[in-house]
């Protein structure tokens, strides 16, 4: 009898003693239904209510809110801006995270540990602290302006606070660590000798990167992109505090409708559309990833 067959009866005994799989899923399932499913259903129901002038909502079944969200030019502009800023942020974040992850992947020893510690950094800082930090960095009396003036690169104060650039930097900073670890986990599964083999066969570094490394890492890139995109779509405070006055995103519009205008049904309809966009985007990215056959990793 082999060692494996020795183990098998023991495993069976354990299996018999354990509850069957559906029972193991139950606690999580109940939690998801109670914590997410029920509020989501309430949100969807709210989106069909009506908003009376001066009040909050009256129960009704109307599609009026969705019609406004999906046809009014102001709302379409808000949806467009949200998708645009999320796409730009996701691209910037994934590119930054990829090159950093690739560098860490190729490092060994203490350097690797140090770089990993740096990568964890942004995860340990709350969104509010990130905002305060960047708000000290970008204004005309901020660190960036003083650095540029001290270095003689400009003779006038530079203000980047309240620009789309500041918003993208702040948003990227929030999701870059998550993207970094998604990509690094995939890179860690790739045999580094493949890069050496590619070079030995005469491929340039650029060709090795585009034809060997990138296809092998596309699973991690897709996951990181989805993460950054989804995060950014839902962030309210950073966009608001660092971006320009006219950068109204869907989360900002939800808060405006919910608190200032007290139009809960409209806020709910925008939230449902936001969830739908995120779901479609996530599924689209997965579809693109699997379109040309199975992933290498």
């Amino acid at each position, binding site marked *: 009898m082999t060692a494996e067959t020795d183990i098998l009866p023991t495993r069976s005994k354990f299996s018999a003693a354990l509850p069957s799989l559906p029972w193991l899923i139950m606690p999580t399932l109940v939690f998801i239904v109670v914590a997410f499913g029920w509020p989501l259903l309430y949100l969807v129901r709210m989106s069909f209510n009506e908003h009376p*002038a001066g009040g909050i909502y009256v129960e009704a079944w109307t599609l009026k809110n969705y019609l406004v969200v999906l046809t009014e030019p102001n709302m379409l502009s808000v949806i467009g801006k949200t998708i645009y800023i999320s796409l730009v942020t996701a691209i910037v974040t994934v590119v930054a995270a990829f090159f950093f992850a690739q560098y860490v992947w190729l490092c060994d020893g203490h350097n690797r540990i140090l770089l990993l510690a740096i990568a964890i950094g942004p995860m340990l800082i709350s969104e509010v602290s990130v905002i305060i930090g960047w708000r000290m960095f970008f204004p005309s*009396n901020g660190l960036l302006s003083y650095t540029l003036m001290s270095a003689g690169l400009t003779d006038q104060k530079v203000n980047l606070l*309240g620009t789309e650039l500041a918003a993208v930097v702040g948003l990227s900073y929030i999701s870059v660590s998550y993207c970094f670890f998604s990509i690094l986990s995939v890179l860690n599964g790739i045999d580094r000798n493949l890069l050496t083999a590619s070079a030995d066969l005469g491929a340039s570094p650029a060709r090795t990167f585009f034809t060997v490394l990138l296809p092998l890492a596309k699973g991690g890139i897709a996951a990181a992109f989805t993460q950054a995109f989804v995060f950014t779509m839902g962030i309210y405070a950073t966009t*608001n505090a660092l971006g320009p*006055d*006219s*950068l109204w995103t869907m989360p900002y519009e939800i808060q405006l409708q919910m608190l200032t205008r007290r*139009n809960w049904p*409209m806020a709910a309809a925008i939230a449902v559309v936001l969830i739908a966009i995120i779901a479609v985007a996530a599924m689209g990215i997965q579809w693109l990833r699997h379109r040309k056959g199975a992933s290498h990793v």
Partner: protein
Amino acid sequence: MNHGENKTGKKTLSRRQLLQAGSVAAGAALLPMPAIIGRAYALDAKDAFKGEELTVCAWSGGYLDSFKTAISDPFNEKYGTKISLVGGWDQMVAQMKAAPAGKPPFDITISEEYTTLGALSEGLYAKTDRSKLPQLADLQPFFLTARPESARDYGVPLGLGFSLPLLNTALTADKPLSWSSMWDKDLEGKLALDAGAYWWLIAISAIWGAKKDFQAFYEWKPKMASDPIFEAVERLRPAKYYKDGAELSFLMLQEQASFAQIYSADALGLVQNGGATFKTGIPADGTVAYGDWYIKVKGTQHDALADAFLGYLLEKETQDRFIQVQMSVMSRKDVTVPAFWHNYPKTNEDLVKNVRLMTMQGLEQLLPNFDAMGERFQQAVLKTSKG
């Protein structure tokens, strides 16, 4: 042996002793009652409310700090209570609506006209018995008459808040405090304006930009053939539309703007932090005001204490302390006005003349077009914002 003792030696109570004991017990039981009806001597009320908790919502930021030092801390000290303060701006109605029945998020809330209108239409407030508040006789009539009769039974007015101009003379030429300055060429790109509660800005523009009265503001409709109010808004070229008091402080102290539309709740703090070059006050051309009323929330479990607190807000000592730390106009006629307050409206006539209150009746008229006004404001921001 006297006649009050029986022959077996057992002590019995005479009718007189029984009546005396009863009187003492009844007196002890009645002692805290005045506190409950809001006219207590401090010692009695202290016994009645000692250790009881009350949650009060007031404006976030500097106002909340002032409220704590001048009102809630002294109240706690006097009555042995535990007042918890929470900050709010425009989310109070949503919070109260979302709370389970009988468990409101706060027992008393600050409530200007827009908040009051929304909360009353949703039935979120509890009435206050005005007959138990003799202090109401010492208030300027303006405060009560400005609210419709149906709303006067809810809460008490502590004072008035204002939309005020703030000028930093270190960054721009010194000029008289006036709303008309907002349209001056030299302030183009140097204004900080409120993006959140934008209707204050629009109201200011209605009066001082478009030369119309408030009625024009209340009667605003989307796609009007002539829209002088928003044309005035669009003539303003701000450096930034700020979204809260913290952002405004940042903009002013970081010298991103030299003139701002601010709220009196933040005014004193900003002037004190900004230094001698920061100038604010009620401008000579008047301003837009909002009532700082405090109202009991329906479902409060501390009804008697809430009433006592509302009564305390109307006391002279309370209002004298508060005006030392806040740029409010207090509701009492006899407050001691501090030196920093220029052009303080001391009489009811001054209030009527210089204060333009955005009334509940007016807002009610505006509400059907409120969303459309918000969208129109966003278009104005798109046209005028630098970002």
